[in-house]
């Protein structure tokens, strides 16, 4: 078979396809988005969920049904999915459940650089971490095997450089035939009322002890004998930076970052004169090894921040804590020149609004020339934050507060905020502005339940944003095209700000980058529907 040049995302997708994963689901988020797109393009059943929590729950159902499931998300998505995740660790699975957490050290396109290795420890789930595309391919099969052998969900941690770097992959020659799906009733193991959850927690810890034993002898954690003067314990892409920075050193490379092969690490550290842990992000490995009484050196605190690369690893090994050369500051991203949101931000600025913002392209409204965003925290947070500000600010300020949220973000987690607005309305009302450009634009134009098209752009049920708002009882709901009528949009916004009732404005105009594709998909969808109804007639 020919070597393929694949990104880590594409390699993980190919492995999922070759492993016979029955269903892949997730929510778009850089750098994880391409996994499901590639899995779908290969012919796998791939679908976008409204958010990561739902995705994980669907994946869990698949794995309860003894099939193989893939769930993908960016690191912050795992916060959303954390509730089912922690208890899924107790229930375990009948098939396989691999949950990809794509972390973003350095925040190339994220609001924080949280280190999701902490989740493996907190939830008590094994975590594998590939270092390049070939490993993303190979370790994915290992994740499936571990998940099925111990009937436990497995976390698969990738990072931006692994997800988006391309390298050569030699795939397997044959696709696996997975076990067929079937329901097995296990009320005690799956229904987590306290009497069942107490023994389930003990079972989880027993599984983890077995997996820790497995990790000690596993080829997932290879030793590379080199110079005895310097030993390096490392994982993920940091391994390659370290191997380049210190080619002569001895290495313990961890493909499984939880549970750790502590005895293997202990004997490795004892064999070398100096043992340094090279890891991106938080000192998770170093802390765990030190807590086990293993004498390892951790990186200086300054290297917790940002990505590692070869020069930074050289500095860590040299214990160099001098200031680093400034990273080149290129041209920052900006709203596209003909983005339909320009008139929206112009109006928000003109009316001197206090803008509780959200996550998406429209976050770029914070930059010049508008500087029209005052908070941006988490998916869906704009509505709750806006309400909180309205509750406490003096009236002159409170009446200028607007929550601004995109269409995909609204469906992801804005609906609960809207329910809060109905249930606990500020006395002077509130204005929620949904920016609907008909796509998940920031991550590269993915579909979502509000577009009425599936991951592969085929027609499906369509969730109406204004319909949700009206059904919840929002007294004032208006749809307007801000691009066609900027003046009308500004007048409408001014009116709603003065109205003292809870209101929703849906500012709808297709993303300029996606508009042509959307027209094409809609046309194809109509043709497909017509073809289906013709066939139905013919068969009658």
């Amino acid at each position, binding site marked *: 078979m020919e070597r393929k040049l694949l990104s880590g995302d594409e390699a993980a997708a190919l492995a999922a396809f070759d492993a016979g994963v029955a269903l892949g689901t997730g929510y778009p988020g850089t750098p994880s988005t391409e996994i499901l797109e590639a899995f779908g393009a290969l012919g796998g059943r791939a679908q976008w969920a409204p958010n990561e929590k739902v995705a994980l729950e669907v994946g869990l159902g698949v794995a309860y049904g003894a099939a193989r499931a893939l769930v993908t998300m960016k690191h912050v998505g795992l916060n959303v999915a954390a509730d089912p995740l922690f208890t899924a660790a107790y229930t375990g699975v009948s098939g396989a459940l691999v949950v990809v957490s794509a972390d973003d050290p350095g925040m190339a396109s994220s609001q924080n650089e949280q280190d999701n290795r902490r989740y493996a420890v907190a939830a008590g789930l094994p975590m594998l971490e590939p270092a390049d595309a070939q490993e993303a391919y190979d370790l994915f099969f290992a994740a499936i095997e571990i998940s099925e052998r111990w009937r436990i969900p497995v976390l698969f941690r990738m990072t931006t450089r692994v997800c988006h770097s391309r390298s050569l992959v030699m795939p397997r020659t044959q696709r696996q035939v997975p076990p067929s799906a079937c329901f097995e009733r296990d009320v005690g193991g799956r229904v987590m009322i306290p009497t069942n959850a107490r023994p389930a927690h003990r079972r989880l810890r027993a599984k983890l002890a077995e997996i820790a034993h497995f990790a000690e002898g596993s080829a997932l954690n290879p030793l590379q004998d080199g110079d005895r003067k310097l030993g390096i314990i490392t994982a993920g892409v940091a391994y390659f930076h370290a191997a*380049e920075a210190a080619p002569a050193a001895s290495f313990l490379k961890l493909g499984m970052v939880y549970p750790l092969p502590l005895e293997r690490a202990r004997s490795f550290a004892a064999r070398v004169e100096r043992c340094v842990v090279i890891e991106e992000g938080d000192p998770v490995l170093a802390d765990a090894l030190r807590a086990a009484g293993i004498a390892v050196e951790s990186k200086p605190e300054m290297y917790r921040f940002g990505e590692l690369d070869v020069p930074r690893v050289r500095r860590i090994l040299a214990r160099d804590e001098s200031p680093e050369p400034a990273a080149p500051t290129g041209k920052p991203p900006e709203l596209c020149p003909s983005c339909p949101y320009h008139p929206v931000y112009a109006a928000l600025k003109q009316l001197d609004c206090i803008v509780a913002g959200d996550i998406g392209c429209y976050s*770029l409204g914070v930059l010049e020339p508008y500087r029209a965003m005052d908070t941006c925290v988490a998916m869906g947070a704009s509505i709750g934050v806006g309400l909180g500000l309205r509750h406490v600010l003096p009236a002159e300020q409170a009446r200028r507060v607007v929550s601004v949220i995109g269409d995909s973000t609204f469906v992801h987690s804005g609906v609960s905020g809207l329910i809060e607005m109905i249930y606990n309305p500020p006395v002077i009302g509130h204005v929620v502005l949904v920016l609907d450009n008909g796509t998940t634009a920031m991550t590269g134009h993915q579909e979502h339940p509000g577009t009425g098209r599936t991951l592969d752009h085929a027609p499906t049920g369509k969730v109406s944003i204004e319909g949700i708002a009206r059904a919840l009882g929002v007294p004032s709901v208006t749809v307007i095209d801000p691009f066609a009528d900027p003046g009308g949009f500004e007048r409408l916004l001014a009116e709603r700000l003065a109205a003292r009732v809870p209101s929703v404005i849906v500012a709808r105009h297709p993303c300029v980058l996606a508009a042509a594709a959307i027209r094409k998909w809609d046309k194809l969808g109509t043709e497909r529907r017509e073809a289906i109804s013709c066939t139905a007639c013919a068969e009658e």
Partner: protein
Amino acid sequence: MHETITNVVLAGLGGQGVVKASDILADAARRAGLDVKKAEIHGMSQRGGSVTSDVRFGSRVLSPMVPRGEADYLLVLAPSEVDVARPVLKAGGVLIPPDLVPEDALPHPRSLNVALLGALSHHLALPEASLLAALQAAIPERLLEVNEKAFALGRAAAARAWGAGA
């Protein structure tokens, strides 16, 4: 275990085809039987911001990122990015600037990426056939002729600028 690898950094602005050009270069290295890794940051860069892509190839490549100050070649598509990207270049490294091929000479305004790839090919030990095969695989057929012209134009411009023996 000291293997020689070639380090190339491509820089430009979102929408200029930096990633496309680096895909073609990396695929050419694969076709030539070499190990290759390529790294870039997607995401916010789609909105017109700076984009850089690192391509490394040789007998065995470790880190996917070109260390600062170690690039053998720096190919820049936008004048504004030349100074931003320059620190990646090693002393004596080759800068392939955006004005190497005059804009009005290009067969298509958006073919500068492939033209500069042609210029880069003048310096590389990679077989031209691998590069052209990678180009054919990456470009839709209706745009192929234009891109092959751009590639040849860049290669000829490099031969003029650096001499046949570079």
